[in-house]
């Protein structure tokens, strides 16, 4: 009887330990890939708030199905597959009134397929933007972007501050983003 209890305890301890190791392994893999997965989701979903919701669902699914992952090396590819599925599920379940303001399921599917192939290139480009291209901006360009992408942004007021009409301001910002992207591409290709 006592022996049986001890065995049970030993069994519980062993399981607990391996569970902890599994947690650690999951956290390591997930954190290493999280920003890539997030960027992938943003390209399909765009709105930051929506992307956050989808990311939470993705994290839960990845964790629940973590035992099915054959090799840690496949984590990235596997997580992109899960992300794609969750994005489409999110799109399907959108309420009617929101639905009209986002891209169609068909377009998102088409884009997901295209993005699967280019995710690494986009990661390199984001890295290039943060490491190099932002430092090449003119002072006024940088301060406009900083205000635009900080917490609370009142675009018409911002446009006025920079002496532009609201439309003109959006066009200006678009061109700056385009230049950043060109810079990122040339650096990423040289990497």
């Amino acid at each position, binding site marked *: 009887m006592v022996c049986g209890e001890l065995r049970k305890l030993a069994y519980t301890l062993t399981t607990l330990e391996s569970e902890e190791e599994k947690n650690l392994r999951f956290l390591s893999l997930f954190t290493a890939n999280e920003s890539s997965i997030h960027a992938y989701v943003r390209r399909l979903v*765009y709105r930051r708030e929506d992307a956050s919701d989808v990311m939470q669902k993705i994290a839960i699914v990845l964790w629940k199905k973590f035992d099915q992952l054959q090799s840690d090396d496949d984590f990235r590819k596997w997580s992109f597959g899960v992300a794609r599925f969750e994005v489409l599920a999110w799109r399907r379940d959108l309420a009617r009134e929101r639905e009209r303001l986002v891209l169609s399921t068909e377009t998102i599917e088409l884009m997901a397929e295209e993005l699967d192939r280019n995710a690494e290139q986009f990661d390199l480009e984001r890295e290039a*933007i943060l490491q190099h291209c932002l430092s090449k901006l003119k002072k006024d360009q940088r301060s406009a972007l900083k205000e*635009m*992408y*900080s*917490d609370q942004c009142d675009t018409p007021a911002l446009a006025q501050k920079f002496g532009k009409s609201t439309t003109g301001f959006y066009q200006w910002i*678009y061109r700056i*983003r385009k230049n950043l992207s060109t810079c990122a591409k040339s650096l990423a290709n040289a990497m």
Partner: protein
Amino acid sequence: MKREEDLISGYLSKNLTEKEVKELDEKLNGSQELRGQFYDQVNVVTSLEEEFFPNLVDEKVITIQPPQSKIKLLAFAASFFVGVGLLIYSATKSPRPIATLVSNENAAWESALPTTVGSELHPGLMSLKAGVATIRFLSGAKVTLEAPAEIELNNEMEGELKGGNAIIQVPESAQGFVLVTPSGYAVDHGTSFGVSISEDQSITDFTVLDGEISVHSQNGDSLFLHENESVSLRQTGISKKSITEAEKVVPQEYNQKNIIRIQSKGKSQSIIRSDNFEYLDRNFLMVKLDADTKAYSRRSLFNIRNSEINWPQVKKVKLRLNLVPCGLGNRVYLPKINNFKVYALAGFSGIEWQGQLSWNSIPPLTSFHPVGDFKIPRSQERGSITIENPKLLNFLKKNNADEYTFLIIRETPEDRGGGLVHAFASDSHPEASGPSLELYF
């Protein structure tokens, strides 16, 4: 501004009407080019938010805590997963991974970085407490550590060994890999070498197992090491280990009679796109890719001639260049790692080497063949660059010509105008030797 750009811009600022969203959707669906533009814009937006948006961290799913509270976090994360509800994650900003942990042999680690085999590693410190482990940098350089050892991963071409023993293997793709130690640093030129740091961190021993490295002390001394050579590096300088100069065994490779070294014999020059020759110096072979007008872009050429060589009999060939500082331009305006490409042209090239060559007087790039590439970190000032690969060997053997003309270009553009001009010693450089080809029969 085109209608399509207006639509994308409006979508990103959430200003489109239902009708406009539908229009954008149809246009995106029908044009791959437009989808490309859309991805690029979103990619820039996410980067900008990462840089400027203050609350981004709060939106992540899992938070990595400092190591001491890791267990607590895990317990929390686990409870969350069983259904309490989830607010896991808010991670530290993670830059691009620069290395992978490829093997653990009875290894015990202490690190904020992941330590399971296969993990992608970001810049950071790793401390190996027991066992042996191997890290492969993205450049291909492989570092095998023996515990106790501590290494800081800086970037894909640089690691900093803070203590312990390690063996570094560097394939061609990672030539120029820098290993920093407490007493100085070593630049690898395609090789494997061993490093051992004394317990008090005052002395670092380097032994070349295969190939060549250069070792640089903190006071500016540097020394080139070949196979089976060892040195000790102290903060005060470099000393040959245990054997004196006179007793030194000549490395076997250089003792053999079956090696021929050919130099460029006066036929080496730089060219500049603007043809403003006052920006050139005959002592240097200058190379630069100009960011702005391209007017200051420079390339270098040299010619190797020897009509007595039977090229098909050559077994191995090494093209050697000596990197030297020429004092022009700023390092900080370059990306951290710079790529260079070497091209070659077989036989008579029509180039008149006597006078100063103008940009357009040399054959176009398309008539040259690419025969190799190499990388130089922007921080590196000096060192020997060796190009050894099958492409170069086959090109020389196949053409079996009396002479070959080589062209060196930098592929990596500078971040802004005024970037460093890379220079290699020309034939007339007062200290370093000019370009040469070493042939092994």
